[in-house]
């Protein structure tokens, strides 16, 4: 008997540029990068230097506070660049691919070895960071034993890839092994959430985990929302979660002994000429995908979706956790009396634009702010897009006031930036809500440890 949860709150943003269900063969990509900025709260320590020869699975840098957690090269080749930002902050380690060699981490049966051995294997191979935790939405602490592990096998974000399609084209065996591996790491349950609005792919429906069905608008697919409704994180408790395609990578590590962090991603957005699916490795340069495939103009390239993704350059790299690339127009233009116009072409959560009369229309939205930053004015709006028993505005104010007790009481342990991304989108005061949430989480990490 599977658990079914129906959610009403939220918002599906209807964008143009949904990926067509066509899977392209792997493209030849020369450059790859691992970006420490993909891991919030991480203080990276570089291993090796420019010019080093690496194999797939060779460590590039590790967590300064937890040296066991290493981040490894996705391919074999040569380290060609180490990019640093302000105050010598490590931004990316770039590798130029040559050959297809990899470190052999050894085959193992996850059901036959100890949990500690499983962890060690994941840590060594560089696959450990795929396991993240609530509270704080950071790479999981390998010394903990979580009360449950969650995998959300669907994504409701704008233009998100269809996981049914992805799993129809992925290895069933690796996925099952990956799930069995994860099951060994918790004393509680392993949950797999599928989209209650569609029929789940066979691979997912028959997965060796407790299947939960969530239906509702975005953010129903966010793992944080699912945790909140199934097994919420209380103070002192820890829950882990893994992206579904990373489960496949874990399975491959145990079945083949190699670190191959590969996934199928959706190339999406209104400015993509042929939005389709591609099979690429994590950290891969996006240039081969965008070449001759985007419309002219000033464009924003995003690794991830439009709500939570990170801005990358046209010759940038896919993020460690992302299964989607979105390309939308930049919004650096002035609009005459824009705030007064009827707004037929403007998608909005609010009912003040004429576009509300066309509930099925799809929009090409750009990166314009549509206003200036103000204090909190409207109330009762954020609540409509956060399907959790949480008061978003009160929590945000507690974070701004750095009131630790209040943050704790109002549920900071249960949320991540992505759960409040829609608040940021709909905010009429244009407040940088995800930045505030991250600040709050970082503050909690410092205070509680």
């Amino acid at each position, binding site marked *: 008997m599977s658990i079914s949860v129906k959610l009403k709150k939220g918002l599906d943003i209807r964008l143009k540029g949904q990926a067509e269900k066509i899977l392209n063969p792997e493209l030849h990509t020369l450059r790859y990068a691992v970006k420490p900025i993909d891991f919030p709260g991480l203080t990276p320590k570089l291993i090796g230097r420019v010019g080093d020869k690496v194999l797939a699975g060779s460590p590039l840098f590790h967590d300064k506070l937890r040296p066991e957690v290493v981040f490894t090269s996705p391919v074999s080749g040569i380290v060609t660049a180490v990019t640093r930002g302000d105050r010598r902050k490590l931004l990316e380690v770039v590798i130029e691919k040559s050959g297809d060699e990899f470190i052999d981490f050894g085959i193992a049966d996850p059901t036959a070895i100890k949990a500690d051995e499983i962890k060690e294997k994941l840590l060594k191979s560089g696959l450990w960071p795929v396991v993240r935790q609530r509270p704080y939405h950071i790479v999981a602490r390998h010394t903990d034993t979580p009360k449950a592990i969650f995998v959300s096998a669907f994504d409701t974000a704008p233009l998100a890839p269809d996981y049914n399609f992805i799993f129809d084209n992925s290895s069933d065996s690796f996925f099952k092994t990956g799930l069995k591996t994860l099951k060994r790491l918790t004393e509680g349950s392993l949950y797999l959430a599928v989209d209650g609005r569609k029929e789940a792919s066979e691979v997912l429906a028959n997965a060796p985990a407790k299947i939960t069905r969530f239906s509702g608008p975005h953010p129903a697919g966010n793992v944080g929302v699912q945790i909140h409704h199934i097994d919420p994180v209380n103070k002192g408790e820890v829950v882990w979660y893994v992206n579904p395609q990373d489960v496949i990578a874990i399975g491959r590590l145990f079945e083949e002994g190699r670190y191959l962090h590969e996934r199928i991603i959706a190339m999406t957005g209104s400015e993509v000429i042929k939005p389709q699916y591609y099979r690429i490795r994590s950290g891969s340069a996006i240039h081969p995908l965008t070449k001759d495939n985007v419309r002219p103009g000033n464009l924003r390239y995003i690794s991830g979706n439009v709500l939570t993704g990170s801005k990358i350059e046209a010759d940038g790299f896919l993020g460690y956790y992302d299964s989607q690339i979105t390309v939308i127009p930049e919004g650096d233009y002035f*609009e*005459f009396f824009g705030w007064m116009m009827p707004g037929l072409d403007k998608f909005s959560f609010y009912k003040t634009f004429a576009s509300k009369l066309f509930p099925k229309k799809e929009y090409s939205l750009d990166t*314009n702010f549509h206003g200036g930053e103000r204090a909190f004015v409207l109330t*009762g709006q954020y609540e409509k897009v956060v399907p959790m028993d949480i008061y978003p505005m009160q929590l945000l104010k507690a974070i701004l006031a750095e009131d630790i007790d209040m943050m704790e*009481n109002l549920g900071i342990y249960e949320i991540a930036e992505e759960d409040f991304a829609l608040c940021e989108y709909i*905010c009429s005061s244009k407040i940088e809500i*995800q930045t505030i949430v991250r600040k709050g989480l970082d503050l909690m990490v410092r205070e509680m440890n």
Partner: protein
Amino acid sequence: MNSLRKKIDKIKPHFMEGGKFSRLRSVFEGFESFLFVPDKVTFKGSHIRDSIDLKRTMIVVIIALVPAFLFGAYNTGFQHFRSIGIESGLFQNFWFGFLKILPLVIVSYGVGLGIEFIAAQIRGHEINEGFLVSGLLIPMIMPIDVPLWMLALATAFAVILGKEIFGGTGMNIFNPALLARAFLFFSYPAWMSGDKVWIEGLVTGGNVIDGFSGATPLGLLTQGEISRIPSFLEMFIGNIPGSFGETSTLAILIGALILIATGIGSWKIIVSTFFGGLIMGLLLNAFAVNEYMAIPAYYHFAMGGFAFGAVFMATDPVSGSQTETGKWIYGFLIGVLSILIRVLNPAYPEGVMLAILLMNVFAPLIDYYVVQSSIKRRLKRAKIAIKNQVK
């Protein structure tokens, strides 16, 4: 619009840091963003943002105020010509009233926006749109004959002491427009109450016909002259003396529909305020010991500023309750207190203004208890989890 844009781009550097007029930067940005939605793009967080902003929000409230404003202008003329016994047409009434209200609107916006501009400049912020609505609300809740200097003083008081010292729009505790009214109500009561201030020209005497009374229905009720109050329909449509924008319940309800349909005004507050008023009215009916307490409860909706307060004042998101459960309680108590003060307190013929200001003070307390209940649920959940672990 390109030529206009070019001109703005040309003068823009003078207002930026290091320019000749950099001290007027906020003012410049205020006007620029009024004409053009800026070209600012997202750089962190969500890459796309909703098309709404505070300007859009405020313009919706202003549109919602238009029916009450138009009727107010018409009624001002209608009452004036009636008081001097002259027959007048629809347009003549409207034009008379419009010319009377115009200076009030100009003074209110001039003083209020002036202070907002200065405050924004001092803080180095962009100019906030909050006063766009307050600036229109203030003249609409005043008697038409209020002297301009008084209006200016009240507006300055409300904006400076009611809003800016708390940090500007979004930070205020009290509804600024009501604060302006309360300021005049207590400082210059002769200009804010009685039988003469509600109709243009009555204060100075003029050609008023003999025996004409400019008393509002509430004034009549307080004086015990129940038999002289107009019919419900007349009061509902609004051909009665009163503050400029408050008389027509019909026009205000059209505004309420706009606010509710767009979701900008909280329907919960509007509905619960009316509900609270109705309950209090019925309670008074049940225990009626005088004629005033016995008037039908729904009469209260059409008299005085009840409807205007419920629709445009109580719904102010900043000074009102901020939680959804809280909004029900907040609105309900405003309704109850309004009618309670109105009927039982002989000193104040109208209670809406004071009820809303009082509930502005209590709104954070209501929210506190609503949020506490969520906190308690979370703590309880944690305790159960610990118990299960021990087992």
